[in-house]
């Protein structure tokens, strides 16, 4: 239905976001059993699992409709250079403040993106976006409640830690909006709004929330966005994550699970 250049751009776009969800899902699952309280351990683990599910949804479209390899092969058999996730998602979990702020900034971006995809001209993607809408709504509810709680109801330390987490994660989060090649083809085809427009929607939304909770947005002009991920350039953190994530799969890639 699309010309070959648009199809290539569409494939890249879905791979980019599938990789984001897979890597962040894996990272956040590292909190399983180590979460701050039992209830939160279960909630955050479940959200991490949802992320991997959303990655699977995107990899499945690539496989079933666009001729790419099956999801397990795509997820587990590539090396870091072939991953297009942004650098935000590959950073280690850090403290819970870092992980929560990353979750907050990531999920608001994911919600805006999936809401837009739900109306897109590419039906398999629109269908997936409608299916996961409720899950993402919960992820955002969870993130908002935590950040608000720690920024407004906690103590001096929790407020300071939310602010410093925001300062630390914000430049990384801008990497979510690094444009890919032929983005304008997707805009023309009614699939994407373009990364610049997405970033603006995201920024305005989170700015309203965070400033309402007494946090100060970092100065956009003074920060250096962590770009590179969309072109396969990563930090030293991604390859060790991939080694750990794929360790069991690579013992016998043909095994039936």
């Amino acid at each position: 239905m699309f010309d070959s250049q648009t199809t290539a751009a569409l494939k890249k776009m879905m791979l980019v976001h599938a990789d984001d969800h897979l890597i962040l899902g894996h990272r956040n699952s590292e909190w399983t059993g180590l979460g701050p309280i039992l209830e939160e351990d279960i909630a955050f683990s479940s959200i991490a699992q949802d992320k991997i599910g959303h990655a699977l949804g995107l990899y499945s479209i690539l496989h079933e409709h666009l001729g790419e390899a099956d999801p397990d092969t795509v997820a587990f058999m590539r090396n870091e250079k072939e991953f297009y996730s942004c650098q935000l998602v590959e950073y280690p979990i850090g403290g819970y403040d870092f992980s929560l702020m990353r979750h907050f900034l990531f999920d608001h971006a994911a919600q805006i993106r999936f809401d837009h995809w739900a109306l897109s001209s590419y039906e398999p993607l629109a269908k997936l976006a409608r299916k996961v809408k409720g899950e993402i709504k919960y992820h955002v509810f969870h993130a908002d409640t935590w950040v608000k709680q720690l920024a407004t109801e906690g103590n001096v330390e929790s407020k300071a830690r939310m602010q410093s987490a925001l300062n630390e994660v914000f430049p990384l989060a801008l990497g979510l909006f690094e444009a890919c090649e032929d983005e304008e083809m997707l805009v023309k085809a009614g699939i994407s709004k373009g990364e610049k427009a997405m970033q603006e929607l995201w920024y305005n939304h989170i700015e309203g929330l965070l400033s309402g909770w007494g946090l100060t947005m970092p100065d956009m002009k003074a920060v250096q966005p962590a770009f590179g991920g969309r072109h396969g350039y990563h930090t030293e953190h991604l390859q060790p994550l991939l080694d750990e994530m794929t360790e069991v799969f690579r013992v016998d890639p043909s095994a039936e699970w």
Partner: protein
Amino acid sequence: MKIQSLDPRVNRLALDAESPYENNVLQQEDHFQTYQVFHQKKRGDKHICVGIVHAPSDEMALVFAKEQFARRGETVNLWVVNTRHVLAMDYDDTDIFSTTTEKIYRDPAGYKVNDKIDAYKKSQIDV
């Protein structure tokens, strides 16, 4: 000494083998409050109390309740109620629920009406 584990995630935490919490007894105020969770399966059904979550605020209790009690199966709605808002009987007063046997006439089971209904149904069929 750091804790050594087969789980790489635990090793990355670099936890001291000597727990700094050993003599650190939690005080009452160190605990979150509990919230009773009420789960509704279908619209129009009663909300049924399914258990508790610990949370620092009402909203947070709802966030946790969703994953604790509505992760699987059907759910259309949840309530959370801070346990301190529940006025409860004392178990020492359980005797106020006991009823003396001679008041069986107050209990519908005391009436042997089913025999009469069965007899009536039978008479209708025979006609």
